């Protein structure tokens, strides 16, 4: 890969200035050789063929088709984020607002402080997911939190499931893990699909 320290060849600068001047419809700068001006004028013609109508039409049709596919990807991601948010709401809401009833139902010791903290965290993750469902660019950030949290809860759920008198909580946690992994995978595939074709980030 070519690199130059700050210095730029003055002849190259003059050629560049000539190109810019002629492109803008101005006269060539002082000092520009007439032969260079001729070459620049001819290169502008050689490199700017008119766009045929069939090319415009074909590209427009292709773009519309891709737009439709892009919309389906976006719909899937939004629905996935909303579904996962719903599962975190199902965990967080009773923890925060009905912790005693929840503990009794699950047959567990009631520690209000811990239930409320879990409720706040779960609802915060849910809120983040709902925001990301609206603004997909925020999805990677919230997934960085929601995915490990959900997987951790899912592992906990699988461990506790055989021993739970009422397994609803464990099943909810396993569901959170599955939904989060699916959403993460969908996002990864969507990003990879876009990055592969743009070449951004590829090594030269």
């Amino acid at each position: 890969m070519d690199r130059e320290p700050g210095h730029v060849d003055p002849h190259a600068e003059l050629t560049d200035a000539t190109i810019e001047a002629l492109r803008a419809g101005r006269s060539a700068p002082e000092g520009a050789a007439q032969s260079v001006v001729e070459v620049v004028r001819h290169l502008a013609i050689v490199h700017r063929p008119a766009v045929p109508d069939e090319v415009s039409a074909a590209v427009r049709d292709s773009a519309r088709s891709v737009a439709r596919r892009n919309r389906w990807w976006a719909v899937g991601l939004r629905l996935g984020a909303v579904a996962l948010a719903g599962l975190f709401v199902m965990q967080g809401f009773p923890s925060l607002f009905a912790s005693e009833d929840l503990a009794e139902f699950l047959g567990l010791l009631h520690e209000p402080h811990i239930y409320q903290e879990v409720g706040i965290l779960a609802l915060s993750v849910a809120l983040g997911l709902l925001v990301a469902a609206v603004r997909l660019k925020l999805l990677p950030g919230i997934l960085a939190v929601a995915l490990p949290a959900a997987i951790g809860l899912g592992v906990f759920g699988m461990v506790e499931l055989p021993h739970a008198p009422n397994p609803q909580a464990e099943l909810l946690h396993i569901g959170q893990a599955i939904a989060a992994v699916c959403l993460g995978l969908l996002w990864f595939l969507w990003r990879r699909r876009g990055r592969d074709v743009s070449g951004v980030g590829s090594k030269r």
Partner: protein
Amino acid sequence: MARSFEELYEEHLPGVWAYVRSRVPGHHDAQDVTGDVFTRAFRSWPSYDPAKGAVEAWLYRIAHHTVVDWWRRRPGGKPRETPTADFEDDNVSALDNPEEHALREESLARLRQAVGTLAEREQEALALRFGGGLRAREVGEVLGVSEGAAKMLVHRAVTKLRGVMTDG
């Protein structure tokens, strides 16, 4: 400034077509490659980050990779000289005088042929600078070189082509 992909497409289709047309011989192949460029750009539009560079450089990087991929898939790969015979059908000269028109077409044909003999990087730089209408800084971003290096590539190419014009 936020812009839609449709605005990007409308603004840059002529430049991308010109760039692809100068890098891919054959009208129909160039049409297919141009379509591929915008298909790829549209698919990756959601992941474009303005903080990483100008949208023009982003789009022409996609065009550059698409052209490279097309040559890779072509049996026999890229020839040493870029074929230029097909370009003649696309240019329209507005000169009134038939004799001037003929002379102009002759010099254009010589120039096209000479461009095909330049170094690969010089051809790329010319296609981006003149076909794509990019500034030197953006040419550098697409090719992965500094702005100064991009200006040198174009200057070297123009210097070599001066001989073609004066020898005619």
